[in-house]
């Protein structure tokens, strides 16, 4: 009864999710939202890895997704610590303010 879905659909869905993440990174100034958009991009890639892992009936892809989740968790912990430091010093997390670093 269960019918397969062509891999093309998963590729397109992942591409759309990834590009929504890219647009979010470019269009927003709140550093936390930018972080969340990066998470969205990571998840688009994860979804594609799982789709291909199922397509080829190979568990390696799912193990890779597992590792990507671990790296994402580490990245978020360190990134949010940096952001809270930035907020403590600037009283804002507008990333355009951080350009004063170059002066």
């Amino acid at each position, binding site marked *: 009864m269960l019918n397969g879905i062509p891999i093309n659909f998963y590729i397109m869905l992942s591409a759309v999710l990834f590009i929504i993440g890219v647009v979010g990174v470019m269009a927003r100034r709140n550093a936390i939202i930018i972080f969340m958009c990066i998470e969205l991009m990571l998840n688009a890639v994860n979804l594609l890895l799982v789709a291909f892992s199922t397509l080829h009936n190979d568990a390696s892809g799912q193990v890779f997704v*597992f590792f990507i989740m671990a790296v994402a968790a580490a990245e978020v912990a360190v990134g949010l610590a940096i952001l809270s430091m930035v907020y403590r010093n600037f009283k*804002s997390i507008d990333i355009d303010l951080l350009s004063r670093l170059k002066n």
Partner: protein
Amino acid sequence: MLGYTITQWLFGILSFLAIMFALMVVFTRNPVNSVLYLVLTFFCIAGHYLLLNAQFLAVVHIVVYAGAIMVLFLFIIMLMNLNADTEPRKHIGTRFIAGMVGGILLFVMVGALRGAEQLQLVQGGASQIGLVKNLGKVLFSEFLFPFEIASILLLAALVGAIMIGKRDTNINSKENTNS
């Protein structure tokens, strides 16, 4: 139902919801709402994992992303007391250019990936690789070394996050005692 199977209906609905919620993440002004929409997006992606017979990853995805990472985001946003009024906005021209660049990128990606083969996914009980037993076997035999490295990475991130968060308070307390 219009010639589509249940799986195809589920795929369509989950994809539509995931894309809609992802768009709401980008276009909502209030950061708290943004986080909540991202949690809903992650639930849709977990549903996709279930459709793909990756049950273990679906559970881990909900526990790690919706349960841990998003709560951390929400915690930081509450701590900084952010809301729609304090939200900085980019210039309208910059946002327009960002949307245009995204559209062009989407066009290029769709054009490049359109030629992929029309392979049918093996689904519906045939695939057992997503179960904990099989994934555990692969993880602890083939990928044992990367697994250990991941533990070192998590430890380093833990120590780093604590050090970054702590140093400033030390400087402040020193300044306070000096002054």
